[in-house]
């Protein structure tokens, strides 16, 4: 059997290479038929098979004492105490969002919610990490995506409590839309999507199946090109109302013990759902009768049904003979359900249409058969260096601060945040707008801090260091609320890995992530990879490893906000500053370029600073904490003023050489916080700092309605707010 016997067009249509086709024929010892080819095409797509990233992902640390479920299931799960587990995962929906921003983003949210539901958990929070080209050119993407995320999440009654928005040229034709969902479940109720028990029934519930997004998975694994137009039907319209009913019905499943497993239908629809479910159980297989699948359209072929990516569908594995019991739960929510097949023990995925067999493939071939791609890595020319000494000194720090505060990447996100319901659930005890958000676990004192972070400019300048900095910043955002970093989910967005410099970026990024997660002791329990963010090979995105992190505080009564609270509090800078202007927002906004090396990161020092903050928070010594991120100390200070509605008066800053004034104000040295401390607590904070060997410096006193550094800058909160809220209509 040779490749010549199938024409290349058909292969391209299912996005398989001639070599992959050869591998299929060899292992099957026959040529696959149409349906089988389509099924293999989607499951062997990058999106489903991770054939280009698998090898690298193994390097990520994924274990820990509290980890109940690492990568490999629909989402990760970690124990948080009092019998509760937190379940979370992040996922990209970049390509669909590029083509249809609203629906692309909405269905992305819908998809990640189903992953969490499949673990038996109730979703309690959403986060969205977004990247676009500059405004106004990219406003269609920006507006559509924000509306779509709100449109789905708000209707579901799940609060969207965090995320990021960045504007950068490299995302103009490849916007990034990563959505994270966090859920809660009693540890002993945690579900796993394993098709156990031959004879058990496969129940398909939720939306009727239409010709949606056929080849969506393979579509997500292709560069956008002029033909994307023809693949457009791959974009779908979500139905959050139906998913809400699906959610509640799945929660009601805890009333029965007849359910063996729940698996969501996402990319590659039924094919991947069934294959994955069976693939997790050695020797397991399944038979599916496409004739029993409820349809939305007439004239659908078995091929259409098996590859359809219609949203809002779930596959439930039910103990044989107890179908009625389970179906009645879904019917109570007016959801259609149908028994479409059963679990077998022959290791084959068999598809029949009535009594005609239309496909029969080894589950293993579908799930693990895709030949792992060995790609070449090649380090590109290092980006422009930066001679800090050649930079002109900062003339008017106040004017610079206003320009930074009103720059697209630093200005207030209130205009976005208020378009998302971030309060539903009565659990949001730290709202979005500061650092991490915090949710309480009702019925306990436990607080969960959540954040997503990545400064892709750093990653562009040095992927290894940039990835570490992303993990560190996420951890800092968690710690700033008084919570301890618990675990991570990551969304790795890259350009075309077939290009050696891109694959090199992947290698470096993953090495950096692994290193930082080990150093900070946070396992990565779930994640997602999005490649080919690279239209026509031009305009490649920066390597963008988005880090989603969850942190834990045993008593949310001890949580911290980022805003100043008390007149007369001492305002301190915790941690030490260096001439870290490389890749800074200051450099971009004031000098117009992205260059240099990212800030130096010492993870030991990072840990020491974090321990200090957590100790002080636990002891109730702090009134607020905010980490220094983009824009440096002065921007962080201004944010603490604006978030608290309280000014701060400081003597002039006189940096010790070699530290420059611009770096002291706007440098982006990591491992630093702005905290406010009641005067009585100062001695204790100082001795804590000494014990942790952390440098602290008194900046000034909170109070009044101006931000002032004597003789250097003096701005009223009103002026600052006007600059900061440029994007709030």
């Amino acid at each position, binding site marked *: 059997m040779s490749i010549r016997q199938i024409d290349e067009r058909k292969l391209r249509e299912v996005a398989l290479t001639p070599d992959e086709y050869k591998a299929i024929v060899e292992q099957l010892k026959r040529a696959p038929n149409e349906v089988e080819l389509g099924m293999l095409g989607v499951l062997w797509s990058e999106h489903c098979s991770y054939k280009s990233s698998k090898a690298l992902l193994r390097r990520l640390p994924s274990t820990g004492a509290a980890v109940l479920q690492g990568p490999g299931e629909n989402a990760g799960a970690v124990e948080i105490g009092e019998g509760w587990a937190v379940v979370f995962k992040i996922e990209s929906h970049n390509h669909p969002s590029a083509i249809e921003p609203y629906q692309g983003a909405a269905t992305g949210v819908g998809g990640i919610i189903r992953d969490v539901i499949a673990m038996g958990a109730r979703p309690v929070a959403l986060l969205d990490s977004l990247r676009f080209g500059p405004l106004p050119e990219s406003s269609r993407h920006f507006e559509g995506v924000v*509306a779509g995320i*709100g*449109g789905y999440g*708000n*209707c*579901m*009654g799940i609060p969207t409590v965090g995320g990021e928005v960045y504007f950068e040229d490299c995302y103009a034709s490849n916007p990034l839309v990563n959505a994270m969902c966090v859920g809660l479940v009693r540890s002993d109720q945690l579900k796993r999507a394993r098709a156990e028990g031959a004879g058990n029934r496969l129940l398909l519930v939720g939306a009727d199946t239409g010709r949606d997004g056929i080849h969506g998975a393979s579509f997500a694994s292709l560069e956008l090109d002029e033909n994307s137009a023809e693949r457009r039907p791959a974009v779908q319209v979500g*139905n*959050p*109302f*139906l998913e*809400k*009913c699906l959610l509640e019905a799945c929660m009601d499943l805890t009333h029965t013990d007849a359910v063996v497993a729940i698996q969501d239908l996402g990319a590659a629809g039924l094919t991947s759902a069934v294959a994955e479910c069976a693939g997790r159980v050695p020797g397991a297989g399944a038979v599916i009768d496409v004739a029993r699948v409820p349809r939305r359209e007439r004239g659908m072929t078995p091929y259409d049904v098996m590859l359809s990516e219609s949203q809002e569908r779930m596959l439930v594995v039910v103990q044989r003979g107890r179908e009625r019991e389970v179906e009645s739960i879904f019917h109570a*929510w*007016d959801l259609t359900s149908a028994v479409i097949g059963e679990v077998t023990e022959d290791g084959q995925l068999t598809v029949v249409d009535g009594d005609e067999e239309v496909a029969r493939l080894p589950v293993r071939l579908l799930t693990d058969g895709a030949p792992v791609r060995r790609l070449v890595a090649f380090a590109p020319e290092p980006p422009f260096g930066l001679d800090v000494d050649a930079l002109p000194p900062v003339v008017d720090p106040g004017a610079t601060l206003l320009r930074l505060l009103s720059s697209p990447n630093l200005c207030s996100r209130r205009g976005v*945040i*208020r*378009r*998302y*319901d*971030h*309060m*539903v*659930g*009565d659990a*949001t*005890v730290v*709202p979005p707008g500061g650092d991490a958000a915090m949710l*309480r676990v*009702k019925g306990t004192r436990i607080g969960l801090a959540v954040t997503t972070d990545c400064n892709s400019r750093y990653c562009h300048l040095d992927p290894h260091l940039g990835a570490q900095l992303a993990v560190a910043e996420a951890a800092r955002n968690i710690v700033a609320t008084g919570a301890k970093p618990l675990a991570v989910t990551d969304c790795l967005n890259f350009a075309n890995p077939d290009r050696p410099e891109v694959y090199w970026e992947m290698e470096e990024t993953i090495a950096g992530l692994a290193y930082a997660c080990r150093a900070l002791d946070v396992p990565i329990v779930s994640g997602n990879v999005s490649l080919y963010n690279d239209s026509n090979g031009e305009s490649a995105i920066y390597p963008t490893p988005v880090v989603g992190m969850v942190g834990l505080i045993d008593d*949310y*009564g001890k949580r911290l906000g980022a805003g100043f609270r008390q007149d007369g509090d001492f305002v301190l800078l915790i941690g030490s500053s260096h001439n870290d202007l490389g890749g800074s927002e200051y450099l971009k906004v004031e000098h117009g370029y992205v260059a240099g090396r990212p800030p130096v990161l010492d993870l030991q020092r990072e840990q020491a600073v974090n321990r200090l903050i957590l100790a002080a928070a636990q002891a109730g010594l702090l009134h607020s904490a905010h980490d220094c991120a983009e824009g440096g100390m002065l921007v962080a200070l201004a944010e603490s003023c604006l978030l608290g509605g309280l000014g701060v008066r400081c003597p002039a800053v006189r940096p010790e050489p070699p530290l420059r004034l611009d770096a002291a104000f706007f440098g982006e040295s990591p491992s630093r916080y702005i905290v406010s401390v009641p005067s009585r607590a100062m001695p204790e904070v100082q001795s804590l700092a000494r014990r942790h060997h952390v440098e602290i410096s008194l900046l000034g006193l909170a109070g009044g309605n101006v931000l002032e550094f004597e003789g250097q800058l003096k701005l009223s909160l009103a002026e600052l707010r006007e600059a900061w809220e440029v994007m709030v*209509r």
Partner: protein
Amino acid sequence: MKFGVVVFPGTWSDRDCGWVVDQVLGAELVYLWHKDTDLKGCDCVILPGGFAYGDYLRTGAIARFAPIMEQVGEFADRGGLVWGICNGFQVLCEAGLLPGALVRNASLEFRCEWTNLLVERTDLPFTAACDEREVLRIPISHGEGSYFADPATLSRMEQRGQVLFRYCDKDGRVVPGANPNGSLHNIAGIVNTRGNVLGMMPHPERCAEAELGGTDGLKLFRSVAGGAVKVLVS
């Protein structure tokens, strides 16, 4: 005092309202399924927020035909307390239990943010525990909360004092700048002529505990409970 919280497909404030009634207020709670046909002897029916039936076509348009709504209508006619919050307000308008309608926010955007409400009356069971012209800080969360009624209806409502809450600034001034959605007369909440049916867009069940940013919402729940039940937390 027994509260009944109605659950339509797509409702989500049911659990928050239930939490406040049961865990914060410490009153008796019963959930009422949209297919139910009796109110299980509750003294106050809450129609909570959410997107009943996805708010497809029009907010509340399909929900108003749910079997439970017949009972709710009769209960209201008998003078029973009916409290529509956000989506519940929209349902009450669609059902004709309250005048007017709620249309798309003037900004065309969904808005989730804190608002200030001027309490116009305290002689009603819903606001009995509030002070005269008190300003309450309660968050909104809606895309279609802009109140509309034709001029005649509106002036009749004003004469009869059917406007219970108006969006205002923190000092209680009813100004355009304090209006988050373009509601006529800054209307945030209204009652029927008899005063036993309340519809309001803001979410009191989201601010009944300090850790959630405020406790003004609890005042309304206490009012309804008539101080009869003692408050567990606050």
